[in-house]
């Protein structure tokens, strides 16, 4: 079996202006949760639409389940569940009727599956309510129920936590983790909630202006997100020598004019502080902190943060 459930090669989509998706090379491993990050307009939704054959690529290649998309058997799309942008259903129909339509069109009309999907997202008591009368959060949960109803092997979810309250977010997160862990479902999602990434994703792709800037594992992300002690000193060069020679510290970084961040031996900060003072280096501040994911992504996309 192929290692990747989704693979793209130079995937490109152009409309009239510049490319919305520009030479994208994605690798979504089987049985993992992959989060695609990016600001608004980064090209995440267009990428997902191309994967689902809703939007036709202007260039590049898509491989799903190890099969090239051009020769991709439509029936294999039944192995995918998806939620793209805001959930859209027929306003005049109830939740049950909407799911029934999808199930029939899929050629797999099973009442127990519809019931299970609605129960999984706490909509079983609201199944006779019309979609137009649903709240934003309920609509989102119905969208998720529709995506998982047929027990797909791959879930493509565009901002799955949109409109959910904190309890709803926790429930959905737990459900997705359970799906991935117990059934081996591959989940490819886009999000701009950075805290969600830490709690959900195992692999992360960062997109900006249609391009994939980075594709990395969670461990790598933790490296960017670890704790540190920051020293504000009068002489950065001499302080570096103290770190290395007196304390044997090699994992540190000069982060600004007069500041150094120490990523190891954090518990020895008082001792290190004394060592700096003994060497005649003035220490004007010592603080403990953690690298923010947001800083990391802001640095990566070179802008104002993930929007």
């Amino acid at each position, binding site marked *: 079996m192929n290692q990747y459930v989704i693979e793209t090669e130079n995937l490109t989509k152009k409309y009239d202006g510049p490319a919305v998706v520009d030479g994208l090379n994605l690798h979504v491993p089987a049985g993992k949760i992959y989060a695609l990050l990016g600001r608004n307009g980064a090209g995440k939704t267009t990428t997902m*639409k191309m994967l*689902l*054959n*809703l*939007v*036709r690529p202007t260039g590049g290649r898509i491989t799903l389940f190890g099969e090239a998309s051009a020769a991709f058997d*439509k029936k294999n*799309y*039944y192995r*995918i569940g*998806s939620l*793209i*942008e*805001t*959930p*859209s*259903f*027929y*306003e*005049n*129909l109830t939740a049950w*009727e909407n799911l*029934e*339509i*999808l199930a*029939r*069109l*899929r*050629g797999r*009309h099973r009442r127990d599956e519809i019931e299970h999907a609605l129960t999984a997202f706490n909509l079983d008591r609201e199944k006779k309510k*019309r979609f137009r009368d649903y709240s934003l959060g309920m609509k989102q949960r119905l969208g998720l129920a*529709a995506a998982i109803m047929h027990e797909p092997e791959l879930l493509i979810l565009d901002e799955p936590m949109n409109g959910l309250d904190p309890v709803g977010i926790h429930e959905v997160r737990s459900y997705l983790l359970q799906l991935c862990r117990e059934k081996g479902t591959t989940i490819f999602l886009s999000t701009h909630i950075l805290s969600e990434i830490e709690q959900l994703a195992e692999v992360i792709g960062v997109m900006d202006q249609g391009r994939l800037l980075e594709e990395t594992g969670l461990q790598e992300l933790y490296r960017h997100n670890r704790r540190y002690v920051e020293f504000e000193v009068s002489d950065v060069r001499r302080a570096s020598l103290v770190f290395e020679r007196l304390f044997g510290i090699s994992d540190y970084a000069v982060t600004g004019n007069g500041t150094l961040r120490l990523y190891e031996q954090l518990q020895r900060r008082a001792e290190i502080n004394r060592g700096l003072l003994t060497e005649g280096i003035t220490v004007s501040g010592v603080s403990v902190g953690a690298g923010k994911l947001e800083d990391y992504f802001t640095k990566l996309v070179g802008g104002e943060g993930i929007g």
Partner: protein
Amino acid sequence: MADIVYCEWKKLKRSKIITTGVLGSFIVPFLVVVNQIRISFADASVDLSMGGIYEDSIMFIMLLFGPLVMAVVAVWLVSREYTEKTLKTIFAIPIGRGRFLAGKFIMFFLLVLLFMLLSWVNIIAVSVICNLFLEVTQITFVSAVYILIRMLKGGLLLSATLTPFIWLALRTKGTFAPFVVIAALSLLNVVLSGSPIAGFYPWTASYLLLTGRIAGMGSSVFTGTMIILSVCLIGIVLSIWEFQKKDIG
């Protein structure tokens, strides 16, 4: 395909436009019978007959009310998928675009037939009710069956001439432009219905073909049939072409 048609039918549940269409099917026979009563009161030599009610009803249905109402229904069947943004949900399943369109055309065709069937029921009903108070001739089983066949044939012709509105809805993704065209088409129907080119104008030709008057208008059954068939095919082909090239969402 049966599942697709079933789903199209299911989508109409609780739709106001369908309820309005059903209620609308009462309007023409009702107004026609009111007018017939008025005429028979004004001129005692004029008989009130079910045949007369049918003749006037079919004229208004085929030339004015039917195209107007059913074109709106055709546009709505497609445009609602855009306004409710349901295409991305449906096509991600996935279903083929051709199958989806086929479902729309079949449902539209069935709705036109349903509209004609309801209109027929109403023609019979107003005739029978009217007969309770005034004398209405030609109320026989044979007449009723004859009118039913004519109404269903009218439904076929009407649905054939309205397929371009499916294309128009796909093209514009909305309702405003198609509604303007529908209004213009209905006006032209009224203006051209008695003119020498009525037999060549598809939406009046269908009425003339149904009532057997097309030869008297300088055209022929063959020409009229070919014109209507061409319009039908153009509507279907353009719709398929338009839809295949479009990205969803």
